[in-house]
């Protein structure tokens, strides 16, 4: 079992790796807002645990094992951020930082499924690493994927509180069958719901998970 602190470091190194930055002790300490001394101490420790390789004065590189752990934490972090965002929370980053160390693999997978296997984090738009298993079962389409003339059933809305309430009041509720009557490519989508027509912006449509019907 790694400590929370160790996990935080691995996560940060993964973020730097993702951004294709040069990974050095000074860069890590800067990104985490800690002193260089404690960073280099931690790097030494992680290196002893064979989670990363660090030649003196050279670049830091995650080992395969380290990479897997780091990616997994980042995945949990972004899934949690997505979830907190769904709950309408504002400062999702810090809370996700705390929760990510406690959540089990099973719960993370269930959360991923609940959210319809999202590709990107709503907070920073970065990619959410996949769990490595078959996604097709969890993957949900969004309203933005439905073409004109097709009917579909709303599964869940993942947008902010205000927008969600407005949609609910217009009858766009989970389980409601709606029909896409018109749409612009990468533009708004017009649906028929409760006998009237409602236009929904593209960004919002991407946050409305749907279940296709035959």
């Amino acid at each position, binding site marked *: 079992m790694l400590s929370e602190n160790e996990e935080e470091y691995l996560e940060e190194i993964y973020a730097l790796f993702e951004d294709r930055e040069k990974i050095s002790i000074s860069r890590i300490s800067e990104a985490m807002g800690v002193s260089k001394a404690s960073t280099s101490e931690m790097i030494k420790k992680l290196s002893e645990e064979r989670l990363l390789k660090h030649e003196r004065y050279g670049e830091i590189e995650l080992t395969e094992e380290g990479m897997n752990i780091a990616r997994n934490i980042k995945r949990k972090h972004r899934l949690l951020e997505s979830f907190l965002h769904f709950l309408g929370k504002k400062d999702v980053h810090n809370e996700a930082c705390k929760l990510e160390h406690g959540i089990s693999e099973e719960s993370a997978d269930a959360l991923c499924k609940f959210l319809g296997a999202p590709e990107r984090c709503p907070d920073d738009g970065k990619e959410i690493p996949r769990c490595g298993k078959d996604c097709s079962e969890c993957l949900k389409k969004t309203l933005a994927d439905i073409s004109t003339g097709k009917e579909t059933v709303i599964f869940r809305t993942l947008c902010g509180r205000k927008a969600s309430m407005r949609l609910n009041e217009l009858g766009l509720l989970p389980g409601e069958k709606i029909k896409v009557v018109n749409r*612009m490519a990468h533009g708004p989508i017009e649906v028929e719901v409760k006998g*009237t027509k409602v236009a929904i912006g593209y960004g919002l449509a991407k946050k409305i998970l749907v279940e296709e019907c035959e």
Partner: protein
Amino acid sequence: MRIALAGNANVGKSVIFNALTGLHQHIGNWPGKTIERAEGTLKYRDRTIDVIDLPGIYSLSSFSQEEDITRDYILNEKPDVIINVVDATALERNLYFTLQLLEMERPLVIALNQMDLANTKGIDINIKELQELLGVPVVPVVAIRREGLTDLLEAAIKMDKKPEKEVRYSEALEDAIRKVEERIKTEKYPKRWLAIKLLEGTAPISIDIEDIKRALEDRISMGAFSYIASERYRVVREIVESVQRIIKPEKSFSEKLDAFLTDPLTGSISLIFFFIGIFALIFFFGNIVSATLEALLLSFFTGDNVLYSLYEGFVAGLTIVLPYIVPFYLLLGILEDTGYMARAAFLADRVMHKLGIHGKAIIPLLLSFGCNVPGCLGCRIMEGERERDITIFLSTLVPCSAISVVVMSAVGRTLGLAYVLLLYALVFVILFVLGRIAYKITPGEAVGLIMEMPNLRKPSISVVTKQTYHRTMDFIEIAFPIIIAGSLFVGALNHYGLIEPIAGFFSPVTEGWLLIPALTGVVLIFGVVRKELTVTMLFTLYGTTELGAIMSAPQMLTFTLVVMLYTPCLSTMAALLKEIGPKRTARIVLFETFFAIALGGIFARVLMLF
């Protein structure tokens, strides 16, 4: 006796209001709000009845000002009867709101409007049964033909008790409601209504019921708000299923036209076509009428004393209102009343999104091409302060018809059309860039487009004329005093020979930085009153309409660019003050002034390179 009209947007409330009250109306604003408040009186069988038209809304949870106003009015002012206007062609959507009105426990009568359209759509509604299910009188009406209005009045006058039936929701919800009701001590609001609102999280007061809400959410495993919405819709669906039959669901002409007008290809082409047409029409028509009118009016009197500038100001106002504002409002009113504006917003949403706002912004931005004042006032339709602020800011940067006059007569006449287009292109790029920046730095949550698409229909002449009239009066009220006072002030400056010193004072900016003649500093100041004064005054000051003789081509371009971008005119400032208050107005004015001058100087230096 007091009757309040309430209902969703676009159901025909104003038509009913107008039909009931005729000319006995008073239109104002709700205290502290920018939303129209329409009140009127009518005499019926020796009785005087006050009628108030509450703002059209989607539902009664507190989101927008409209909804707060309606809710507060009904609960605090307690009108004797509420007439709930319901669109018979969208029963399900409309009854959702009716359920909420029922919960407010005021005497209620339902006006089932647009029965004519319902008939052509093949919708058959069993009115007697609907009446029984809801427990309130339901009167079918066709407002535009005044059919059924007497019956409606009779029913309203007779109505003196609160609705007898109570809508029952699921057991889980009823349980929670009962528990919340036990904690409510206040008598100020109907208990059941307040209990539901507390569970939804949209109540006007706060009482701690979190535990009950949480227990409910655990039991139903979804959010309370969504659950209540779905319960309401479940009840509504049951009602609609038993009272409504659709006989011939056949595609009507209006639906086919709708498909054509909102098709990504044909729709976009017609949108562009429509707007170019409107601008061409207004522009050519407006220019001719405006010039003739001005010449005519100014030929009555001549003079150069201070009082004369008062008259000039009046003429200036008139020559904007009659030729530009009225026709523009008229055409716009038609587009709105037919439901076309919602289509335009739909088509434009993607492009507008690049500016950080959504499709609805196309309406105020288009208005701004005519005149920035209605543009700024039109920003009210943007829900969310953030969207409204960005749209207002962009509206003030849109070149209005007065600016087009400047561009045409300064640059167009001397340098040709190509340069005119160049300047416009430049301004649009700037607009776009500033829009992006405003989008990035304006705080608040971006709300995407959620818009009901009203049915496409023939415009009603009375609705359009009425609206044009009110909008024009609104404009006159804001702009006229300012235009006249501004002219007076400038006239006084002129009279006391203060113009030259002022020009000298600003010469470091004009001559030094913008590299244009010092006298232009004077006209730029006058331009704050009205933008087209910038050229007309240049003509007078130099005694020629040949600007080519006064300024070089680069100077002319710099001068025109500054005129296009610098401070909003006085009337627009007045509109801004009314809409967004002094602080934000000051911010916009200062920013645009400095920005235009800074950019103008850079532009002048870039031009020197050629």
